[in-house]
């Protein structure tokens, strides 16, 4: 089973300042995303149905929405680090 990203670990360190570390609870956003996703899914199913009946070639908005959620779920493990002489930023998706 795929586990979506749960926490965003963000560390910002500035020159001569105490580093700031934030643990952003992404898991709190998932119920909201789920609710919005279900609503959007209903809309895309209707839109795809209408587009299909109209004979349009592209009627894959539902599949697109599902793939977007799938891609969001795969972001776990992504690490972005930036540093220069004054600042260092570290962002990890757990």
């Amino acid at each position, binding site marked *: 089973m*795929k586990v979506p990203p749960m926490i965003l670990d963000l560390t910002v360190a500035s020159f001569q300042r105490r580093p700031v570390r934030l643990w952003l609870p992404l898991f709190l956003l998932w119920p909201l995303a789920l609710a919005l996703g279900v609503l959007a899914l209903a809309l895309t199913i209707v839109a795809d149905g209408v587009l299909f009946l109209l004979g349009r*070639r*592209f009627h*894959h*908005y539902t*599949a*697109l929405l599902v*793939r*977007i959620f*799938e*891609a969001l779920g*795969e*972001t*776990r*493990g*992504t*690490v*972005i*680090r*930036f*540093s*220069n*002489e004054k600042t260092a930023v570290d962002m990890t998706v757990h």
Partner: protein
Amino acid sequence: MSEDRGRILELLAGGKITAEEAERLLDALDAPTGAATASAGPAIQGDPEPLIAALPKYLYVKVLAANGDNVNVKIPIVLVRSGLKLTSLIPPLAMDKINETMAEHGMSVDFNNFKPEDIDELIGGLRETEVNVDGKNGDTVRVYCA
């Protein structure tokens, strides 16, 4: 169906490995080795997990700028695959605009022609590719999988 075969197919279904990798692992399971031929057992004895674990899992992009800026990005390969799969579902109008913008920046990639098998091939190729760019001003860019 053997337990190992089932596990490989499970990993394939879960998107943990590509079709190409699954094929390679299944081939390895079927391939007769000296010892295996003698015992008529499978080519891989026991757990295929160590073999799968040896496959690269992340795409790394490292940029070292001459002015001291460093950027390191580590992206799960499964995310790269998901992103590429998305391209086949982007509405044609949006895709035309993407292709146009990319062409303006000197990248003539037509995502309209991307097929699932191309994506697997591209990911497979990425695993064996390393890109090193050394700029005139001292900037370096390194892209590799590990």
